[in-house]
């Protein structure tokens, strides 16, 4: 998995989170998805399904326990994609 793949993951996450929040807020990697972007649990779980389909990977939802920021989610997806 290359750096460009990581950028692709980050870009996808930012785009999707931006549409989920329905605001003009610029999404940045350090943003907290729950406290700053108000992404509720159902929205996050549905986003994970989208990411799974886009990158053809399995992302267990229990792996999300420690994920708070956009960057942490991108790191998790990148790690799983690299191992697949």
């Amino acid at each position, binding site marked *: 998995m290359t750096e460009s793949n990581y950028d692709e993951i980050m870009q996808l996450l930012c785009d999707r989170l931006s549409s989920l929040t329905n605001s003009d807020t610029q999404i940045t990697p350090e943003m907290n998805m729950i406290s700053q972007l108000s992404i*509720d649990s*159902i929205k996050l*779980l*549905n986003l994970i399904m989208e990411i*799974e*389909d886009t990158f053809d990977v*399995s992302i267990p*939802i*229990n*792996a999300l326990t420690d994920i708070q920021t956009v960057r942490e989610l991108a790191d998790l997806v990148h790690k799983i994609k690299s191992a697949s």
Partner: protein
Amino acid sequence: MNLLEKLDAAAAARKSLLPNGVGAFGIPIEEVFSATEARIGDRRVLLFGTNNYLGLTFAPECIRAAHEAIDKEGTGTTGSRMANGSYFGHRALEREFADFYQCSSGIVFTTGYQANLGTISGLVGPGDTVLIDGDSHASIYDGCILSGADIIRFKHNDMVDMEKRLRRLGDRVESTLIIAEGIYSMLGDQAPLAEIVKLKNAYNCILLLDEAHSLGVLGKTGQGLVEKTGLLKEVDFITGTFSKSLCSIGGFCVSNHPQLEQLRYISHPYIFTASPSPATIASTRAALVLLSKGSDLRKQLWNNCTQLYSQLKETGYLLGPDPGPVISAILDTPQQALQVWQSLLEHNIYVNLILPPAAPEGKSLVRCSVNAAHTPEQIKYVGDTFAKLYKMISSRS
């Protein structure tokens, strides 16, 4: 934000949805008159928000059995079965559930929630995978979390999506548990069991079906979706609850896999809790007899379900895809759902209000639960009241 401030924030969010102080969640019920009527505040209301599907809460046979059990064995067992022992009734009910499902063994749990928690966390663990429907009940999610297994969701009742996720698991499918429900509690729709079984066999997984809402409701003898579809032998583990059609509290798991018995020694939700009281077990045993012989009750239930579902649909409400005892009107916004729920209560009708994120896909639901004891007049009154409210919400939107 400290721990208590987090709770204050949640309380403020709840209050914003309940401006006049009427609590839709955990509403105080002052008196219960029958399977269909109770008093809330100073109102005598029709109960359309219970899961009393066969209307057996006041069945004389169940009440008598509970009285006799209390007289004979006291009010409680005062401890777990592991430490304090299994009463005759616990063992008898397990045998009766196993026989009812033509299975070799059964286990009784203290609640339906614990039946899923205990079965799932006993069957899978770290390194295993659970593949669950996105609309699964919280007891399934919590059981999966407790197990430590990897949790993968598939889109609700979408078999193409489910197969895609099975395929991605690769070699891990051999330690994968698929979980579905007979009737889903939010929209009242049924799992496509034949297709699930086909995939389960193709990928050589284990299948658990939760018949919580379908027990007593589907199939000739009320076994649930397994009986309606003729697929009883294809499902590895069946769980369910006593708190709906059986009108008490507790849960069960049955299976033909002899390994089920091992759950008694590894499943914390089974081991570390007090066992069901003698009265609970006795009334459940009596209710199971009535349920299995209750084809007339099921016929009445389905007449009632069809009557209300048809009337709401004709009125214009968006409903779940299948008629059944769970009938949810899908509203555009939480405020609209709250308005309908409050207006129904003002018309002396109690139903359930379900708001995001509890409802799937951000929906807001006003959920009715129909039972066999409802009269055609009661159903018509509820349908007519919904129709009146539909005009009100249509004119404001």
